[in-house]
């Protein structure tokens, strides 16, 4: 579904990504794990077209999408839940969801989709008229995810969904991610919480300073002594 081929991204003189190659197959959950600054978020932003690619290519559903503007990439079927949730703080929950459906024009289908998001996240329904800034961190994460689903993405990019959340909430968010995947959305997940990420992912890539150092089946990686030592706190 998605293929990154020898991707290089620079921030000024800093080489953020050095020849990243990876792929996501339809129906998978693929995790990117690694320490802070390893380049995980940069990969997602390069896919979404938010930051320019220096060289290499991104292919999605057999079409090259590197170099096209971010709003066109959303139309192709890739949606991102950015790091830190980034809900529109001074807009209501409902308006945030409407923004997620910006590329769509079929009003009745949008309303249906909003109902589906509310069914998945009942807390959001209770707060639909409230400004997003009045929501708790967990609710904001739900809103950011609901918003990203509004465009009916084929591929959902999730950037640190567990960040700043209590362990119980993290479990809840991760089971929702599995549900979303089970209902047909392919997922690419960036996490510092490698334990959680590997527990739900099919495959994973381990990143270090802008390079893929390990890759493979998520369960095998979780059992790998090197990974356990470096990322799973053993």
């Amino acid at each position: 579904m998605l293929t990154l081929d020898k991707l290089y991204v620079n921030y000024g003189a800093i080489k953020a990504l050095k020849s990243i190659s990876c792929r996501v197959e339809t129906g998978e959950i693929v995790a990117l794990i690694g320490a802070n600054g390893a380049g995980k978020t940069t990969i997602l932003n390069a896919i979404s077209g938010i930051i320019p690619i220096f060289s290499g290519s991104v292919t999605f559903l057999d079409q090259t999408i590197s170099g096209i503007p971010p709003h066109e990439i959303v139309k192709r079927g890739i949606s991102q839940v950015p790091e830190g949730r980034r809900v529109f703080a001074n807009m209501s929950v409902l308006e945030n969801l409407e923004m997620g459906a910006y590329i769509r024009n079929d009003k009745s289908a949008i309303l249906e989709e909003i109902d589906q998001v509310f069914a998945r996240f009942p807390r959001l329904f209770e707060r639909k008229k409230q400004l997003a800034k009045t929501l708790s961190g967990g609710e904001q994460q739900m809103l950011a995810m609901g918003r990203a689903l509004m465009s009916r993405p084929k591929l959902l990019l999730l950037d640190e969904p567990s960040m700043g959340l209590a362990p119980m909430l993290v479990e809840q968010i991760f089971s929702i991610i599995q549900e979303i995947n089970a209902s047909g959305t392919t997922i690419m997940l960036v996490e510092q919480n490698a334990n959680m990420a590997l527990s739900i992912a099919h495959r994973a890539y381990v990143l270090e300073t802008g390079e893929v150092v390990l890759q493979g089946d998520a369960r095998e990686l979780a059992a790998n002594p090197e990974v356990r030592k470096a990322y799973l706190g053993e």
Partner: protein
Amino acid sequence: MFFQQLINGIALGSTYALIALGYTMVYGIITLINFAHGEIYMVGAFVGLFATAILKVNFFIAMLIAMLVCVLLGVLVERIAYRPLRKSSRLSALISAIGVSIFLSTLAQMLFGANAKGYPEGVFPVKQITIGSAEISTLQLLIIAISATLMIALEFIVHKTKIGKAMRATSEDYNTAALMGINVNMVISFTFALGSALAAAGGVLVGLLFNAVSFNMGLMAGLKAFAAAVLGGIGSIPGAMLGGLLLGVTEVGGVALGFSSYRDAIAFAILVLVLLVKPTGLLGRKIQKKV
């Protein structure tokens, strides 16, 4: 006497508000102080003047023509002078804005001369209405009514329409708006179009009010409207409306109290005072640092 001055102040203030809205909306989206905005207002006044004097259309049509021309001009200025500098430092865009401002006022001076021109007589038949002790002109009422209508229309666009909501989203978070599939360049063009249309309406109304249109009218009006936008809290739409009205009323009040030689200083004195007490302006939000 008080009521009279209040109406005078509101009429003047609503024209400041119309211009201030353009500053605040553009700043809200791309954090640029569009110094050429006052010149858009000036061009609006000239277009209105020519439409009434040469095309002999009625006042409302003239205002619509002025708004349309300024929409095109505003969008063009953004395209040519600001968009190529979007990724450069903010100072570069600011300098470019000052350049556009000088260019437009000089061009107007070359084309239309240095003398102020008046609207043809009878474009808008002015009558005086006496309410209590106050003498109010129908022109003042027209200015207040048109400004109020435009501002209500703006509130509607910003809060109820899809593109308006996209504007608010983009002004909150540029990158995340793009991640929603919003074409941010289109939203920015739309913002310039809205702001320019309002400024053009303001230009035509002020041209009528003072019966003087000149190449340099955008300078002081632009500065005062900018002061009004900062006073209300730059980036805030209701703030610009409030700031404009407040500035108009205090300026007229100051003149009525006998400080007419300090007329232009009053606006900036208020600005300094408010910013000392509340640096974000009256309705300004705390500026969140975007990571």
